[in-house]
């Protein structure tokens, strides 16, 4: 017996209403809601993490026959406790777009022609071999994703870094999380948050730093709102460059001029010290002070190089450094009233309040992204509000496995599953686990993402395999990189689930299994690894990205490194990968534990998850005998950094007189290649737009919906104006969401990046507006 289409639509309708009700009334419960269960009795429910953002909501996927027909929040998952956002509730519909890729395609005489997938895999292997023979091992590259499953990223790293011996492995998480990584590494010596979402249940103050959580992390935001409703001592402050739904729901909205978050963070530290709100016991025991290089550039030129150098300073030198950041001075730079800076400092400084800071792309996509991460840690460290329930500087992620696959597996040019390629011990461990001869792994990193696409354009890279990502929408200064990919002697392989502007530049397209059509694991923002089974079969010849890589690896002669059968490969890969993290600082849960639970947090030690790292009460890796142990750094302390304000790479001038900020909307996830194929989501938000401040619009005579040309030094795009819409930018600033491939806003953006993290800044460049 199969569920009929009508019942499915009714279930989707009820799902939509429940989703809306939960967003309007946080905490509302519909326990009697059984979706189709009661009506049909034939749905089986399987657990999985949501496909979309980095929150890692647990969902239950309802399956009838071999089709996913319903979805609901998993009440057993501590992340979302049975709730989902509008994308999550409609996620299974993303599996069934009518133009789903089900067969391999190969470009022949300029046209894409369908071929059996085995033939396409033969062509890929042959082309890789030919390219390596002709141009060397560093002429082939893999560009993956924070949507890769952990096994996907692991086998990619093993094939490219281990077997082929090139460090040309990067992932799109470089575009979203790299500054968070370098922020953690420079401040604490180890990556990923010390806290967890449970901090929301304890904090009295939430400060969102350039982070529109109401749209980007709605389930976590609803948890914050629920806490504010339940307790009378919760305050939410939105600190941002534009007014959003987060600002509207917060107790106070504070707006700052782009890039000046650096100055405001320093001013908060200045005020904390001036008022003697410093937690001296904590600082004396657990903190050391440092400064690095300044005037560090923006990476705009090819082959740009930068290496920071830490120099120890003392507290008095740090205090002297902060003299340039009095609230009055910073008010002039940032537009934030001095009284608001003092108010923020008083919230952090009040010893009776527990404070959690949340951030995501606003701080990470920043030409001083590492620095602003450091500066927010500085605030929490000065007042000792860290690593305890409710006191948490918390970097959120945007992709379901940016942490699990990219940061933990290490699918970046300089990384290995444990450690970095530059360290002999890390290479030796990988070579041992991968059963490779000593010296197989190259000790030199090659290209970070922007540099990799520049190398493709120059011809230093000739072959690139792109999996689970859409760089021909997301790369900044897009034209250069699209033109580079289209050059005659470049060979591009794209593995994806739907046609995109990236498959448009491909020489081979591989149909990929999507989400629950394969077994795998994701790793979310709070160090939680989440396993999912193959719940429904992939369509046609679609194949998991992991298995695609294994097939090519075997064709290249690496059968020994990739020996697993299709029945057991995910479990075998996980247990091999787990060997890299065999220590109390990062131990991962065994495969059978992951299969049984709705996510497990690492470090997983003696059968127990670790919720607050560096806190001796919670973290078994703490061995100093003190209440806290920041074991990531050699001095066993967390580092406070003196990092100055420096301007953006490009600021508005007389000709290009507006800031351009880009981002997302609640209905669509990233480039919209999945969510735009879900009718409910597409109809709710069918098209991108440019948000303009109403006063700027009035000055220019622009009315709502009028087509406006946005022009930068790189290119232009024309799209409808939105005035007093969902978001309202400050004067002199415009905002454009990037989900809509009709309006490629990255034709306009700048490929400047943080010299430490190499993460581009999608939030700031200069544009001018013209009526189209």
């Amino acid at each position: 017996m199969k569920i009929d289409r009508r019942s499915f639509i009714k279930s989707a309708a009820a799902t939509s209403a429940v989703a809306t009700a939960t967003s309007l009334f946080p905490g509302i419960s519909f326990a009697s809601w059984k979706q189709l269960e009661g009506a049909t009795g034939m749905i089986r429910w399987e657990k999985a993490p949501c496909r979309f953002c980095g929150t890692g909501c647990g969902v239950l996927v309802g399956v009838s026959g071999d089709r996913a027909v319903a979805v609901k929040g998993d009440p057993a998952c501590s992340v979302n406790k049975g709730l989902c956002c509008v994308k999550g509730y409609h996620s299974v519909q993303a599996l069934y777009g009518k133009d789903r890729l089900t067969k391999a395609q190969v470009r022949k005489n300029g046209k894409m022609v369908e071929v059996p997938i085995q033939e396409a895999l033969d062509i890929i292997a042959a082309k890789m071999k030919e390219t390596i023979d002709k141009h060397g091992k560093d002429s082939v590259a893999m560009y993956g994703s924070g949507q890769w499953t952990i096994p996907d990223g692991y086998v990619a790293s093993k094939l490219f870094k281990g077997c082929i011996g090139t460090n040309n492995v990067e992932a799109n998480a470089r575009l979203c999380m790299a500054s968070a990584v370098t922020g953690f590494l420079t401040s604490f010596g180890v990556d990923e948050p010390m806290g967890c979402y449970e901090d929301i249940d304890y904090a009295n103050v939430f400060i969102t730093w350039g982070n529109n959580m109401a749209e980007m992390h709605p389930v976590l935001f609803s948890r914050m709102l629920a806490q504010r409703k339940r307790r009378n001592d919760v305050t939410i402050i939105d600190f941002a460059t534009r007014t959003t739904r987060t600002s509207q729901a917060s107790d106070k909205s504070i707006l700052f001029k782009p890039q000046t978050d650096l100055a405001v963070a320093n001013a908060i530290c200045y005020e904390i010290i001036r008022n003697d709100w410093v937690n001296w016991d904590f600082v004396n025991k657990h903190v050391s002070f440092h400064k690095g290089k300044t005037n560090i550039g923006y990476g705009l030129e090819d082959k740009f190089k930068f290496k920071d150098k830490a120099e120890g300073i003392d507290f008095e030198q740090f205090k002297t450094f902060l003299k340039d950041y009095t609230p009055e001075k910073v008010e002039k730079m940032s537009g934030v009233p001095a009284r608001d800076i003092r108010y923020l400092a008083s919230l952090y400084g009040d010893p009776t309040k527990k404070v959690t800071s949340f951030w995501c792309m606003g701080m990470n996509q920043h030409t001083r992204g590492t620095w602003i991460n450091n500066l927010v840690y500085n605030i929490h460290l000065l007042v000792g509000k860290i690593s305890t329930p409710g006191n948490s500087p918390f970097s959120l992620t945007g992709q379901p496995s940016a942490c699990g696959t990219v940061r933990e597996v290490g699918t970046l040019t300089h990384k290995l599953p444990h450690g970095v390629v530059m360290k002999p011990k890390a290479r030796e461990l990988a070579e041992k686990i991968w059963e490779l001869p000593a010296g197989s792994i190259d000790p030199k990193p090659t290209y970070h993402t922007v540099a990799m696409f520049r190398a493709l354009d120059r011809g230093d890279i000739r072959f690139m395999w792109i999996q689970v990502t859409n760089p021909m929408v997301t790369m900044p200064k897009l034209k250069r990189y699209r033109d580079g990919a289209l050059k005659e002697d470049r060979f591009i392989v794209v593995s994806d689930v739907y046609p995109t502007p990236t498959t448009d530049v491909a020489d081979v397209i591989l149909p990929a299994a999507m989400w629950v059509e394969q077994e795998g694991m994701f790793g979310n923002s709070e160090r939680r690894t989440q396993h999912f089974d193959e719940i429904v079969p992939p369509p046609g010849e679609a194949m998991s990205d992991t298995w695609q890589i294994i097939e090519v690896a075997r064709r290249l002669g690496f059968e020994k490194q990739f020996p697993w059968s299709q029945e057991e490969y995910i479990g075998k890969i996980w247990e091999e990968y787990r060997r890299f993290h065999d220590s109390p600082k990062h131990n991962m849960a065994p495969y059978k534990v992951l299969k049984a639970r709705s996510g497990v947090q690492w470090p997983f030690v003696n059968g127990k998850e670790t919720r607050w790292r560096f806190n001796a009460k919670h973290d078994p890796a703490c061995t100093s005998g003190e209440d806290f142990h920041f074991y990531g750094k050699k001095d066993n302390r967390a580092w406070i950094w003196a990092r100055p304000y420096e301007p953006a790479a490009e600021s508005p001038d007389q000709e290009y007189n507006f800031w351009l900020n880009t981002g997302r909307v609640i209905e669509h996830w990233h480039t919209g290649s999945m969510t735009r194929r879900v009718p409910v989501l597409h109809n709710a938000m069918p098209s991108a737009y440019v948000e303009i401040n109403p006063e700027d619009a009035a000055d220019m005579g622009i009315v709502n919906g009028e087509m406006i040309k946005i022009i930068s030094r790189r290119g232009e795009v024309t799209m409808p104006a939105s005035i007093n819409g969902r978001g309202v930018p400050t004067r002199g600033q415009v905002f454009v969401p990037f989900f809509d491939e009709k309006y490629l806003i990255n034709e306009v953006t700048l490929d400047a990046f943080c010299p430490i993290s190499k993460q581009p800044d999608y939030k700031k460049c200069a544009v001018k507006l013209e009526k189209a």
Partner: protein
Amino acid sequence: MPVLAYIVTPRSGEKNKLLKELNAMQHCEALSADNADILILVTDTPDKETEKQLEKQLNKIESMESLSMTFGYNDELQYKGEGDGHEDR
């Protein structure tokens, strides 16, 4: 063949009465929140005319404070391929 979903607010103290009334109506399925005075209503009608008639009936229910649509589906529109996002490419 429209399928619509609504969030329904009952008049004070009349949630259970409204739930019964809605579930007794043809083409209607309603469910109640456990911890708030909110109902979810899904309507499934054979054609647009019946949908209009049903809407009139709903508006006459005295125990109902408000009715807010959250979801709308129409077979005719969907089968034309509108709104699946891909034709914009």
